[in-house]
């Protein structure tokens, strides 16, 4: 493991204001609110106390949700090209999706093209079921992931 931070001084962007709850509006009790991009936010960065959104690792535009075909694709952008945390971030995203989405959804997580040195390797690793399952057996990794996801359960 490299000592010190990989990106010591990241640029922090503002978080987009989301309406948490609008009680005042009259709900149509039976209206359907489709699953959309908002379900995936509030994941903490593995090395900084900011959320991935604040670091612009993921944005709403980078998440595609297709409810008809039960398909989700997330494209994330590591802050620096050689970021060794890319796989951890990807794993967090995957776990978050696994826990948040109904089981029939298929998810595809990839690094944005041209933003990472070992793009292909990372993509392959993230979308390999066996390797993801194996990674989640590792207690150290699982702790790390859980820590990153903690704010989204707050």
């Amino acid at each position, binding site marked *: 493991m490299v000592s010190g931070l990989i990106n010591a001084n990241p640029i922090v962007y503002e978080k987009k204001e989301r309406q948490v*709850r609008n009680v005042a509006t009259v*709900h149509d*009790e*039976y*209206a*359907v*609110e489709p*699953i959309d991009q*908002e*379900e995936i936010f509030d994941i903490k960065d593995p090395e900084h106390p900011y959320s991935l959104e604040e670091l612009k690792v993921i944005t709403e535009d980078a998440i595609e949700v297709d409810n008809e075909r039960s398909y989700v694709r997330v494209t994330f952008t590591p802050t620096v090209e050689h970021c060794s945390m890319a796989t951890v971030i990807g794993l967090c995203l995957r776990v978050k999706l696994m*826990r*948040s*989405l*109904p*089981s029939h959804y298929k998810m595809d997580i990839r690094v944005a093209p041209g933003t990472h040195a070992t793009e292909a390797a990372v993509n392959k690793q993230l979308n390999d079921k066996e390797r993801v399952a194996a990674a989640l057996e590792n207690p150290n990794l699982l702790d790390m992931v859980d820590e990153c*996801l903690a704010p*989204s*359960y707050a």
Partner: protein
Amino acid sequence: MAEPSQLSKYIESFVDSSLSPSQQAESLEAIASLLKNNQLTIETLVREMEGYLTTVDNVIRSRGILLLGEVLVRLASKPLDDATVHSLIAFFTDRLADWRALRGALVGCLALMRRKSCGGMVSGTDAKAVAESYLQNLQVQSLGQDERKLCFELMECLLERYPNDVASLGDTLMYGICESVDREKDPHCLMLTFHIIEVLSRLFTDPSGAPDFSHELFEILSCYFPIHFTHPKGEDLKIKRDDLARALMLAFSSTPLFEPYAIPLLLDKLSSSLPSAKLDSLRYLSDCTVKYGVDRMAKHVQAIWSSLKEVIFTSPGSDLSFTSESLEGLDLPKNEIAAEALSLLQKLVVQNAKLSLDLIVTDEDINMIFNMISSYKNYHEIPSEIKQRLHAVGRILSTTAKASQESCNRVFECFFGRLMDTLELSARNSSGQPDSDESTLISKRCNHGALYLSIELLSACRDLISSSETIRAASSHSEESWKSLLQNFSPSLTMAFRSAFICSSKDTHDADMYFGVKGLLILATFPGGYLLISKTVFEKILVTFVSIVIVDHDKILLWKLALKALMQIGSFIERYHDSEKEPSYMGIVVEKIVSLASAGDISMPFPLRLEALSDIGTSGQSYMLKVVQGLEEAIYANLNEVYVHGSTDSAEIVTHLLRCYSDKMIPWIRCAKGFEEVLLQFSINIWNQIESSMVFSASLTNQRGVLDAMIKAMKLAVASYSVEKQNIIVQKSYNLLISTISFPSEELFQQGRFQIAEEVDNSSGRDEWILSLFAAVIIAVYPQTHVPNKRSIVSLFMTTLLKGNVAAAQALGSMVNKLDLKSTGGQTSSDCTLEEAIDIILKSSLWIFQKNSSNIQAKIIGDRETGLNNLCNGVGRCTSLHIHAIVGLAWIGKGLLMRGHEKVKDMTMIFLQCLQSSGRANISNQDKDVSENNYELDLHHSVMKSAADAFQILMDDSEQCLNREFHAVIRPLYKQRFFSTIMPLLQSLVVKLEPHSRRFVFRASAHIIIDTPLVVVLSDSKKIIPMLLDGLSALSNDVADKDVIYGLLLVFTGILMDKNGQEAVSDSAHTIVDCLIDLMQYPHMMLVRETALQCLVAVSRLSHARIYPMRTQVLRAVIKALEDPKRAVRREAVRCRQAWASIA
């Protein structure tokens, strides 16, 4: 005389260090009380103690001396002769040299020094001797904290009480004190130290003669500034940083001799980056400026001004807010530092007006801003750093102008003219008429920066004259130049402000409107009649505002601002009793606004009109009177339309008017004094009007809203009267009632309900109207108010409530709630007591739910004499009558319940019987034979439902009647009592009934659980939880029960969050989880699903052994919730899933 042996025992036990402190204290008190009661003289005591006081054993000697000292502390008020005092002080003075027994000596000295003059004081020479001994013998800084504190107290006492004697010591004293206070660190001692220096330097103010010690003293002080206080919280008891800072400040400013050292130091620290240092510096500077005097401060003024300017210019200022709330709020900086700086500036200007004004007037930065603002037309164009400086200049000028008349003159002379030039305004010419023609002025936009500064200046001089008491006297003799300037420019300024919001119709900014309105507002609120602002100008301003209010209602901000400004002008006139301006205001504003209530030709929307009306009314009593009159006239006129023609338009208007009356006016009138008569007149007029309108075409069906609004207004109005006035109105309405409505005869109630109902149906719309209003009056009266002919009224209401008139039911409930328990002396036949009323109610056949087969009815009547239980017989075809009867009974029951009357039981029994009905109306005849005494009933579902909902009426806090506002009799804890009596009944009922008919019992119990205070439910949670869970699952099938389900779930959440509740819950964890899992899929209400998931999260925190078996079941169920159509539910589902997944 006390026994010598006893005394020596006391002494021995105090001196003996092996005994406990409490025993020592006891013997000390014993000796002191002997002395106080003259059973012992000081002399005897000293003789007795001789051995202890002179022994060579250090410990015993110090205890002995301490005993003597402490005894003297306790004798502070006992007179002692001079010789004793003298010899004692001589002894202690001598003992100060004995460092091993110092404490006692210090305590003794202090006790003697503090004696009041009445009972023997230490003489001046003795005090001097003490001081000498002190200075010679004490090495204060080498002592412990307690002794140091005593030393400082002693010195403080010497300096304060014997200043002249001590002062004669001169240098020695100075040196001694400097030495002893140097490097003190304990906060308690520091407080004393600072005070000692303060007193000391006052003592040596005169610089002649004695060598100057101020430098040395200040050296000691200066190292404490600024106070850096790091004591952790809670450790030190009383002293805070602010106390220390204040004490040090007083020491700083104690003598002008410190000036050469203090001011440079403070100015230096002012430039520090530490906010607390800045703040302290400013405060100290303010204090020093006042105390050091003009001459000494003169040479520092320039330096202080430049630092101040720096502070004010750089203090982070916020943007001006252009909302109606900030209209009158002074533009004070939120920043504490800037506020402190401005107050220092004001002190400087007051103290040395000429010098500081010269500086301000010639200041380059200020002049630069003045040059700069002319290049920006619009407020929003100004870059933020210049905006900040602009605000700073505004504040500086306004503070300066506010300081004194002289400074105000100077500022106006120098700056006002320039501002007017920038705004391109001209003074009034000699003829006194504004020479600018309006058209040219209106066509161009005004400079915002200049507008802002003129507003600041104007408001400053307004505040200046409103703060000076003798406005007229001051302005008559002195020719203040700012006043003449203001007089000359006020017409054209008015034009400028008006044009600010009139001209720029295309790209209007908030700033335009805000500056315009604020400027006009300030001009209009100059105190002192028309002295400064002429009548024409004032009236023009009013007309402008009024026309905005009436015409420009589509510009929301401008409208609000103008209305607010009018309100403030109104309350200003009221506050200053400005008799000159009041007629103009009344004529222009109030009249016009009041006419809004009735005028039909204006496009202004009605709610806005009412807002304007009520706002203007609340700004002053005399306006309110007018407004209320106008409003009432409009109400009467429109009501007339409604009565005679049944006009729908008028009905809508009058509903608005009445709502405004009851929501805005009545609350205000209640707070103000002297308006009761007006309110009384209002309700009397309403009654008169309805009395005189014989043609009545308003029907209940389409004018329900009007009647409801009238009922509400009537209730609120009547509730605010005194008992005597209520008597008047009750009598008045009763007279009208008997003249129109024929009271039902008592026999009627013995007949069947259908006859009654038919009887009631005969009444006309007007009767119904009168009856409802009468019910409103009855609801709102005090228990003491006399209601005539109660018997008939009770019967009347009973017939009326069958028609579904809820007001009548509520009135009946209120009557029952407020009736006297015992009959009063002069009772007539028409009066009745509570018991009688209840008899009338319960015996009537209204509650007999008639059965078409008469034999059964006969059987039932024969069974019980009261016929109470007959209620529960019924047929499906008169369902609505049943429901009305039950609702009526529920309100009556509520009245009884709240006063804690036991008859409420009879009523609840009726409801319970209804709930037991099988719900199968047609097929139950054979059941009847089986259960003769069980009164198996056949009631329609909706009747059973309303019986269940009767419990909600019983328990709920109603806003419409039976509350504090309407003077209900409320017994404490009535809900709790009812809860504990009724719940066992309901529980046993559940057991008794067949499963399919339990639903309404659950609904009833749910109402009770929901409305009982949570604490009560918690204390009974073990018994309640099964009921609650059964209720949740039984009610989850029907949409109509969704609110009840939600209420129950909330109670359940409350139980889960409580410590005791959790214990009760964990016993039945399995059932609970099952129930919650079912509710997770509840289709009719999102909140239920969400709350169920939240409850599950809470359940996951129960003991692991209990919940682990359910884990897989929960996880499987939560997955389904992940696909919920609502986002909030999905979010909770994710949380819930995580919570349960992580308990593995």
